[in-house]
């Protein structure tokens, strides 16, 4: 099993959620995040002064998938998150030892 972690623009979250749901993904975790990547923030003008905004609001999406589904779901997330503009975010994959469903104590793929 793998954990997909995607850092995406807040405006793409709804589309990604719908795409995951219609492709058989049963669960996801979404949290607010802020940070910067290669774009290193941007400048904004507010009340007559220019500021560098380096920590930009993003959303972190976490999805657990079976190894067999990994590439399909990864492509789905990346394609949906891609607006072509800088700051579209990053997606990475980490191996998962096991997963437990709390209510039934099911383990591994059965718990997904």
């Amino acid at each position: 099993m793998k954990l997909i972690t995607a850092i995406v623009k807040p405006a793409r979250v709804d589309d990604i959620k719908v795409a995951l749901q219609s492709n058989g993904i049963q669960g996801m975790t979404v949290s607010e995040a802020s940070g910067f990547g290669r774009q290193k923030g941007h400048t904004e003008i507010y009340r007559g002064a220019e500021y560098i905004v380096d920590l930009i609001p993003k959303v972190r999406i976490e999805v657990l998938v079976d190894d067999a589904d990994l590439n399909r779901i990864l492509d789905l997330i990346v394609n949906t998150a891609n607006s072509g503009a800088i700051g579209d975010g990053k997606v990475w994959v980490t191996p998962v030892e096991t997963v437990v469903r709390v209510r039934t104590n099911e383990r591994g793929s059965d718990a997904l």
Partner: protein
Amino acid sequence: MSGINTGDTAWVLMSGALVLFMTPGLAIFYGGMVRAKSTLNMMMMSFAAIGVTTIIWVLYVYSIIFGKDSGNGLIGNLDHLGLNNTIDQVVGSEGHTIPTLAFVMFQLTFAIVTVALLSGAIADRAKYSSWVIFVGVWITLVYAPIAHWAFASQGGSGGWIIDKLGALDFAGGTVVEINSGAAALALAIVLGRREGFKRDPMRPHNMPLVLLGAGMLWFGWFGFNAGSALGASGLAATAMINTQVATAGAAMSWLVYEKIKGGKATTLGVASGAIAGAVAITPACGYVTPLGALAIGLVGGVASAWAVSRKYKFNYDDSLDVVGVHGIGGIVGMLAIGLIGTTAVNELGGNGLFVSGSPSLLTKQVIAILATAAYSFTATFIIAKIIQKTIGFRVRRDVELEGLDTTTHAESAYDINPFTSR
């Protein structure tokens, strides 16, 4: 107490309540403008202004402002210590007298809001105990003399600005606005810049609070300006419509300026513009026509919108723009009287340069502006320096970074984390 005019008395009593309402309004306006971690401290500074000023007002401040002039137009005497000789007394002209205590209450609310305004210049970094002491010292040594100069009319032998110079200030362009602007600049310089000034945007954390506060100030300002007619009169009606027109005009002109300069019409802009317009019309509201008030509002909004960005150029951290909004707005209004003031509105007023062709009134207005600003800045600077050198005026760096609410008041404005707020 025979012969008081009940209509006039009712309006002044009501106005006292309206103007007092401005200070909690200011607390909310300022509270929304700072970062979340020091919201309560910002509001607490305004409430200390209400408490301290009220206590010393009754004890001696009313007397040294409105007591009989000491002879040189600089300060009043001590005849009314503890509000002695005010009960059952009346003030006002024949047929329009009101109880002296109604006047005492009305004027008290002006002093409160003026000192509360200063807190905006030193947001997020002032030691609370030092602020409480500062309020009492500043009201005594700065507000009281200037209020005597410009408000204590005693048949030609009262305060020098109103009775000898003859400059016009209907509701406090000098005493409240230019005074607070100049004092705010001195405070901002003495306390120094906030950690991260110019590096971090330090945006307002709660814009709905800012708008609510601006609305309370706008509402209360009718008592401030129309109440300064000290009667339920045609002059009060003029002052009221003028206040509305200038406030609305400046709210819109600030937005236009902002849209042209930065590309966005902001909520903070419309709120600041409204206040700048109300400030600018404050001295002029009883001396100009409604169309004149519109011009004052439009110019005042743009002038203050330009002025608030100067702090980045000159590198002083007037955090909530007291100098740009109140100082500059007050100057615009005082000068406007000298340009477009007309006795057609108020026979006790004067004709400005564009009406009479004579610069005489304008010259008096300029003198009143300069005297107020110079005295206020200098005296405030000295008071703040002394407090800083003795008991300290600024919190430690770690306190400032953590925020003043938890460190100074043991409270938090938004205690909503379910795991830590039990």
